């Protein structure tokens, strides 16, 4: 593989892949927050 094919492949997949993974993580965070919202946890805590 020549130098520039290597360089552009790593650069494009690298930038795209990083963006894709972080976008995926943002969706997963939103999902986690929806499934385990802050309020529900508070109400689930034992009452004194």
């Amino acid at each position: 593989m020549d130098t520039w094919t290597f360089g552009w492949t790593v650069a494009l997949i690298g930038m795209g892949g990083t963006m894709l993974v972080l976008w995926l993580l943002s969706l997963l965070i939103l999902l986690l927050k929806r499934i385990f919202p802050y309020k529900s946890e508070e109400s689930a805590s034992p009452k004194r």
Partner: protein
Amino acid sequence: MESAILAGLNGLILGFSNFGWGQAVMILIGSLLLYLGIGKGFEPLLLLPIGFGAILVNIPLAGLMDQGGVLRFFYDTGVLTEIFPILIFIGIGAMTDFQPLLENPKIILLGAAGQFGIFLTLLLALALGFDKLEAVAIGIIGACDGPTSIYVSSKYAPHLLGAVSVAAYSYMSLVPIIQPPIMRLLTTEGEKKIVMGIVKQPVSKTTKILFPVVVTVAASLVAPFGTPLIGMVMLGNLMKECGVVERLKQASENEITNIVTLLLGLSIGATMEAEKFLRVETIIVLVLGLIAIGLDTAVGVLLGKLMCFLTGGKINPLIGAAGISAFPMSARVVQVEGQKYNKKSYLLMHAMSANAGGQIGSIIAAAVMLSVLKGMGMG
């Protein structure tokens, strides 16, 4: 008897007779690193052992990096095996609070843009004639993340480890000087003055505990060869958030990290022998490292401008500069810059979200790159 005395005295002048200008220059460079660490407070935890290691390894005939030498032992045991940076990642995870990111997850994309300098610098390094793996090691300075830079460069171009590490740690501490001119240049007066609303979304403890597990599984499935990086950071963060292994968390962020930082710094300094370090390519690596962090900042701000446009002016593009991994320094730079143009603008919390995104982003970018290289049959 006379000859024995002369031979004995000769042993005392061997150091001087083998002392060349190269070693003298390197001892000065080591001293400069000590000055930057001690006198200027630039990343002293790393620059002090690196500087001292550079001095030690340039003492003629001391043999610290020869087979059986003490610095060779540290280097072979911890750097060549990648154990030292991996252990430091656990400590970083244990020290990092991802709460700002969890409160405002959309900002994480700025953490991706803040890594583009890695890949753009890789292309620049290739254009300047570095071979493929050297270009990868140079580009990773753009992660603006010391352990990640060390991990990748020790894997692909160990002969550049000293230059890459010194560049990574020096420029991280120079973020308040490097970033502001680029931020000012790329934003309009109106954009700099944008006031962002308060985002306060409390996050449940369950979410905080599940976050490191979910990130590990999801990111490692996409970039499996970066699992050592992602996994160890997230292990440290899980220990922090779960609250039931306080001793392990304390050990990770204190004893383990401290010991490994010392040995890692010495090992990096030990790679700075005069004949290996005093080359034109070292200067080029240092310049490219600076460009990498400049490009990270520029692309981050440009994505910030795009997000500003798409949200109808609700996002101040300055926070894009905080998409790098230098936490929390970069977020503070954004806050200070924003305040210069609008006293009512409080960008710190938004910038902290971007900065936390940059911390994850740097690891993910390295993980993606490792996996792409593996997929291409390299490394």
